[in-house]
């Protein structure tokens, strides 16, 4: 009796495995090195393979598959473990805030909810390096969410925005629950930055779901002149500097970047769109300040180091050049 590969089945008519008959599991075990501790069985398989070129080729491919898969995963095993994962293990809730060292991540938000009407009309894409496409999709979702929010309505700051087709409010947004959720996710405390110097007042924070299933926190600020800006924060570790990239859709603008454990998208439209760049140094400085005080350091925090309104360039620079966002409806480099 043989199986579909022509290898004799190892079980006899009574279902009891036969010691003298090789089965497919022997070929698999040979390829996986499991027979290394059973020299007699291994030698039996080796003889079988010597007489059966088809099986030999099959097993050889299995061995090569394992080798390629181990190569594929090698870098992950050698890579440093992200701090947030270690914190997840070692931090218990009762003692979380007693851990040494000030560790704060500040985030800002702002957005002008003037009508931007509809889908994205322009976009900067930054593929070509890992994660760029995902970050672009995140920012695009934020921009779409921004455009579909009710215009400067008071509900933005409280019980959540009604289903907009892009963002779904995950939990009630009273108090600091959304940011507390984010803090637990990244194991680094997130605080709302004070944007009062720019004329913006925080009007609410909400947990939303953007970009498929990815949860995020939306911070909404309102300017004294009625303009509003939103910042979307999503846990996403990237332990290297990342430039600020710009995209646009109609009258709306989005800036996006990575900072340690956070992916950030900041959207604005109307009067707020022109001022959104001015907020970036404040937000990034706050985040980088937390990094220096805590466990992360070395990210570009000066405004000169930020890349605004131009494509990335040069080795070691921001992610990607010239590639398109596979998920964006149209691509335009501003």
């Amino acid at each position, binding site marked *: 009796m043989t199986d579909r*590969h022509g290898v004799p089945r190892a079980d006899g008519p009574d279902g009891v495995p036969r010691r003298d008959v090789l089965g*497919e*599991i022997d070929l*698999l*075990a040979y390829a*996986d*090195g*499991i027979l290394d501790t059973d020299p007699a069985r291994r030698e039996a398989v080796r003889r079988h*393979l010597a007489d059966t070129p088809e099986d*030999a*080729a*099959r*097993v*050889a*491919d*299995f*061995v*090569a*598959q*394992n*080798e*390629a*898969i*181990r*190569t*594929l*995963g*090698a*870098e*992950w*095993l*050698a*890579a440093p*473990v*992200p701090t*947030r*994962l*270690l914190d*997840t*293990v*070692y931090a218990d809730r009762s003692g979380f805030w007693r851990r040494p060292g000030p560790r704060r991540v500040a985030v800002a938000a702002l957005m002008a909810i003037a009508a931007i009407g509809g889908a994205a009309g322009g976009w900067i894409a930054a593929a070509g390096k*890992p*994660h760029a*496409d*995902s970050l672009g999709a995140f920012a695009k979702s934020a921009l779409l969410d921004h455009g579909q929010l009710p215009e400067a309505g008071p509900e933005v700051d409280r019980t959540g925005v009604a289903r907009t087709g892009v963002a779904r409010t995950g939990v009630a947004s009273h108090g600091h629950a959304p940011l507390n959720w984010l803090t637990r*996710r990244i194991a680094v405390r997130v605080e709302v930055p004070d944007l009062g110097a720019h004329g913006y007042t925080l009007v609410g924070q909400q947990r939303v779901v953007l970009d*498929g*299933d990815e949860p995020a926190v939306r911070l909404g600020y309102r300017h004294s002149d009625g303009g509003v800006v939103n910042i979307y924060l999503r*846990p*996403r*570790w990237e332990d290297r500097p990342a430039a600020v990239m710009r995209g646009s859709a109609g009258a709306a603008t989005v800036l996006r970047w990575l900072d340690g454990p956070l992916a950030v998208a900041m959207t604005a439209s109307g009067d707020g769109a022109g001022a959104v760049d001015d907020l970036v140094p404040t937000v990034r400085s706050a985040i980088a300040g937390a990094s220096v005080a805590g466990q992360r350091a070395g990210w570009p925090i000066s405004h000169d180091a930020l890349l605004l309104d131009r494509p990335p360039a040069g080795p070691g620079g921001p992610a990607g050049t010239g590639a398109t966002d*596979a*998920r964006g409806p149209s691509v335009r480099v501003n």
Partner: protein
Amino acid sequence: MHDEDDLKWLIAREIPHLRRYAAVLVGEPHRVDDLVQDCLERALRKRHLWRRQGRLRSWLFRLLYRQHVDSGRRGSRRREVTDAAAAELATIQPPRQEHMVQVRDIATALRRLPVEQRAAILLVGLDGLSYEEAAQVLDVPVGTLRSRLSRGRDALRDGWRPAAQSALRRVK
């Protein structure tokens, strides 16, 4: 209290293995740490369920695999993982040029397998679990594991062929 600390220490030692397994299983590097973090949080919540006669790594792999499968069921809207994502996984590998094409292609071929077959292959081929351990992780009989290994590897052969020298050298 000391037991708690020791268990956390043991779990932390497994994080690199969890990240590697998650990276190749999911095929999307940007999702790896989120998945691992979810797994770690679940492991800590459920740590009373870990029976110490088993390997901690196997238990964590089981949690991670279930987490991944469950998230896939919940996320029917989740985007299709593209070949580009698999290529992305390959691009973060060491710069061994002679292997880059092979590594990229195996990543792509893996992505095309059903997750059950991919998980089985990775547990054995990547992490070196015994068949018994791998079957326990996947909560299937050993015969089912064998079947998944066999079908998955034959499917991989259809989409990926190794460099002849490498394969022959290893079999001899």
